[in-house]
C-alpha cells in the first residue's frame, strides 16, 4: 500500500501531510501520558509496535499471483486506539522509506493516513462495535484486524484515484486501483485477522487484568470465556 516516492503530485502530497500530522501529534501526547501513568502498559505497547514492524515487513504471495504486505495495525488499534497506532506506523514508514526505498518521504503523509489512521480507525470502530453487539471476543478481534488491513488498501486506492482521475472520473480510477489492491489483499487480510487473534488470545490469557484496566475488555466479555477455558 506504500505509494512510492514522487508518485503523488502537488497538491495531494501536501494535503495528506496536513491531515496526518495532527493525528500523529495527538498520538504522541497519548503515548507520553501512557508512559507517565500507565507504565505497566508499556510492554504491551512494545508488543503492538513490534507486531506492526514484523507484519509490515512480510511480503506475501496471494491467490491472484501478485503479492502484498499485511499491516499489523489492528492489534495496536484495539489496545491503544488509532492515534497511538499512527505514531508507530509513522516510525515504520520512515524506516522503510529511508532504508528500504519502500514508500517515500514526499508520500509519507498519504501513507501515514492510510496505514496509520484510516485503517486503525475503522479497525477500532469494528472492535468496539462488535464487542458492543456482544459478538464473541475473538471474532471481534478478527473483524478488527481484517477491517484495518483492508481499509488501509482501499484508502490508498482512493488517494491514488483522487490524484489520478481517469477521463471518465475519479470513480473509474478508484475501481482500477481498488482492483489492483483489494482482491490481492482480501486473503492476506483474513490471514492477518487469524494471526492477530492468536496473539490477542495469548496476551489475554497472560494479562487479562491489564487489558481490563485499559478497557480493552470488560468483565462481562471475559466472564463467559471462563467456561470455555
Amino acid at each position: 500500500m506504500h505509494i512510492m516516492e514522487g508518485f503523488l503530485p502537488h497538491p495531494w502530497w501536501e494535503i495528506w501531510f496536513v491531515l496526518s500530522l495532527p493525528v500523529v501529534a495527538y498520538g504522541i501526547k497519548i503515548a507520553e501520558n501512557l508512559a507517565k501513568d500507565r507504565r505497566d502498559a508499556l510492554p504491551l505497547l512494545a508488543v503492538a509496535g513490534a507486531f506492526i514492524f514484523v507484519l509490515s515487513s512480510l511480503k506475501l504471495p496471494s491467490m491472484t499471483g501478485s503479492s502484498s504486505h499485511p499491516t499489523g495495525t489492528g492489534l495496536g488499534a484495539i489496545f491503544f486506539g488509532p492515534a497511538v497506532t499512527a505514531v508507530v506506523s509513522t516510525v515504520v514508514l520512515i524506516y522503510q522509506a529511508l532504508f528500504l526505498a519502500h514508500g517515500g518521504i514526499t508520500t509519507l503523509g498519504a501513507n501515514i493516513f492510510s496505514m496509520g489512521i484510516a485503517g486503525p480507525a475503522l479497525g477500532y470502530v469494528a472492535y468496539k462495535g462488535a464487542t458492543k453487539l456482544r459478538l464473541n471476543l475473538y471474532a471481534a478481534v478478527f473483524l478488527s484486524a481484517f477491517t484495518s488491513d483492508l481499509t488501509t488498501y482501499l484508502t490508498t486506492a482512493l488517494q491514488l484515484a483522487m490524484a489520478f482521475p481517469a477521463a471518465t472520473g475519479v470513480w473509474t480510477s478508484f475501481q482500477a486501483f481498488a482492483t489492483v489492491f483489494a482482491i490481492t489483499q482480501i486473503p492476506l487480510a483474513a490471514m492477518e485477522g487469524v494471526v492477530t487473534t492468536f496473539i490477542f488470545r495469548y496476551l489475554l490469557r497472560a494479562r487479562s487484568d491489564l487489558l481490563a484496566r485499559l478497557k480493552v475488555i470488560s468483565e462481562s466479555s471475559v466472564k463467559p470465556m471462563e467456561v470455555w477455558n
Partner: protein
Amino acid sequence: MKDESVYAATLGLFFALLALAGSNHASTGTDDLAKDAIMDITRGSYHPWLSTPWQPGEDQGLLFGVQAGLGGSVLGYFLCRYRKGGQSHLKR
C-alpha cells in the same frame, strides 16, 4: 533471562527468514501494479517528480529481513516475559 533470549532469537530468526523468502518470491507486488495503473490512466504522461536517492536492488530482501528480525526479537522477548509473569484473572 535465558528463556527470553531463546524466545527472542527464535521469533527473530523465524520472521527474518519469512520476510526474506517473501521478498525473493517471483510474484509482482501490488505497489508495482499500482504504478502500472497510474501509467495506464495517465497514458504514460506522469513522471514521478522525485525518486528515492538510492535503490537497494538485490539487498532489499535482506533489509526486509532485518526489519522482521528486529521486530520478531522484541516480540519474542516480551511474549516470553508475559508467559512467565502472567497475572491473568482467567482460570488457566
